[in-house]
């Protein structure tokens, strides 16, 4: 698809370059024509047309072929400066010349078409591979909690006599964790399909940055995390208009990423500011960070770091980016010092100048 549009956009240049090349080669050959003979000039022109055939589309090439044939006939075949041709040999030569140029053009056009088909096939194979990756990571991510639930309930039902109350509690706890994990994956999948279908329509309303972030962090802390989350929000941050649910989802994905991939006891910092009418939120951690070569790729669907630990579908960051974009914003990844990752979200938003209402 893309190569098609590039072709079309460049087609005017193709005509210009093809014609110029023919004119240039004819011009240069002209003073030497007497010395090398007009048949050699035909070969030079043929070479020129062949070069255009390799580079350009079929129509500019045919025009180059036609133009060069006419020039050769007019300027180089005796009698000069007429389109008349003196001998039968020259007549055959001219026809042959044009035929060979034409075959050249058609052949290279065909080759290019086959190349394009091969490329499409390759892309399709790539999509299939991606789909398989999805199925693998998904079936793993969905089957593991399901297997846990089935095994734990079996155990509770048929093995009650041998289970201590402690073990029973543990099994029930595992079922709970598995269910939450399933719920999280289903949320991810639903979000992904909403993004893919272009179904997400932000419902913007006034939001309070401090309330959103403190609420989210409070929620995560209640679920039990082993890192220390520090929140820094400029108290003068005004109310701004965005889709609160979507923004929460983005931040939740970034935070749960930080929580799952950084060591216990390290800190996670969330910084919120509003400059002009851009809301900027950064989430930085002290974990292993991301290699420079993978910084862009981590936002791709199903992408997982090569040394990533098991668990996760590679959807979280991709969803975070998709949702941020649906809010008109951007997300980027950089390095923390001395180590760790920094995710920066920027969202342009309508800002409220209503700060403190003294009286009614």
């Amino acid at each position: 698809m893309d190569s098609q549009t590039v072709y079309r956009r460049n087609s005017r240049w193709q005509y210009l370059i093809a014609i110029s090349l023919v004119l240039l080669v004819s011009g240069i050959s002209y003073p030497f024509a007497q010395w090398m003979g007009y048949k050699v000039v035909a070969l030079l022109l043929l070479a020129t047309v062949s070069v255009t055939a390799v580079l350009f589309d079929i129509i500019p090439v045919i025009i180059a072929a036609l133009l060069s044939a006419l020039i050769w006939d007019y300027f180089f075949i005796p009698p000069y400066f007429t389109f008349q041709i003196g001998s039968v040999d020259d007549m055959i030569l001219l026809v042959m010349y044009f035929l060979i140029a034409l075959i050249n053009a058609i052949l290279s056009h065909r080759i290019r078409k086959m190349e394009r088909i091969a490329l499409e096939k390759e892309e399709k194979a790539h999509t299939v591979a991606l789909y398989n990756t999805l199925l693998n990571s998904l079936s793993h991510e969905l089957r593991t909690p399901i297997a846990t639930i089935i095994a734990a309930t079996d155990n509770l039902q048929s093995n009650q006599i041998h289970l201590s109350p402690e073990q029973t509690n543990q099994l029930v706890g595992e079922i709970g964790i598995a269910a939450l994990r399933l719920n999280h994956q289903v949320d991810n999948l639903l979000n992904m399909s909403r993004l893919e279908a272009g179904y997400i329509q932000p419902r913007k309303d006034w939001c309070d940055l401090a309330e959103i972030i403190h609420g989210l962090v409070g929620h995560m802390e209640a679920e039990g995390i082993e890192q220390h989350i520090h929140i820094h929000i400029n108290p003068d941050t005004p109310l701004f208009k965005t889709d609160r649910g979507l923004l929460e989802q983005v931040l939740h994905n970034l935070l749960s990423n930080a929580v799952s991939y950084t060591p216990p006891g390290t800190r996670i910092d969330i910084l919120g500011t509003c400059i002009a009418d851009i809301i900027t939120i950064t989430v930085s951690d002290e974990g292993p960070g991301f290699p420079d070569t993978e910084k862009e790729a981590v936002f791709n669907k199903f992408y997982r770091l090569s040394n990533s630990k098991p668990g996760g579908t590679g959807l979280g960051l991709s969803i975070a980016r998709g949702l941020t974009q649906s809010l008109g914003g951007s997300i980027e990844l950089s390095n923390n010092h001395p180590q760790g990752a920094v995710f920066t979200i920027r969202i342009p938003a309508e800002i409220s100048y209503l700060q403190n209402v003294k009286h009614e």
Partner: protein
Amino acid sequence: MSNRPAILIIDDEPQMRKLLDITLQSHDYQVLQAATGKQGITMAALHPPEAILLDLGLPDINGHQVLKELREWYSNPILILSVQNSEDDIIHALDNGANDYLTKPFRTGELLARLRSALRSRLLDQQTPLVQMGQLKIDLESRTVSNELGLIKFTATEFNLLALLARNRGKVLTHQYLLREIWGPGYIHQSQYLRVFIAQIRKKTEKDPNRPTYIITESGIGYRLTDPD
């Protein structure tokens, strides 16, 4: 007849009904079950329960329609069960007389707390002038608010907003409802007023306004006043 409060479950999922049945029975409620909207309306009419748990996604009639028909004569609490990402549905149901909502999946503790709160609010309706939530005392008659540190100065609008939440304590009030009641019908889209005033009330009443314990935000829907204990 037993004096355990009767709860009617209207939900088409047998598994969900069974689960709710066990949970509620074990917490001393009597349970009635209906699998369709029609059946639910009939059962509510035959044995009016103390409260109804109504699933919005029913196979026969739309849950909103069931709610509307019930509300023509039924005045006890109705709690909505809905799926995630359906703020519009929830707001619509709350504005049409539902007392509260729970999104699936929900925690049993949450369900029981909401149910208790809804049943209690029915008894509280006889205008008690003094509302106490934790350390916060709201006197609706003398229009004063105090906490453990003493009297808190409130502007008239701040007080009206807090008093409205206090009269409906435990219940979610939608943004539109609060804006209409406090500022008037012309203001139902001015949710920034609401946020500014809620923030000011929190600054005056909460120990940590960033972690509110009295006025709880129901994301995308509204606010509710709760007892922090």
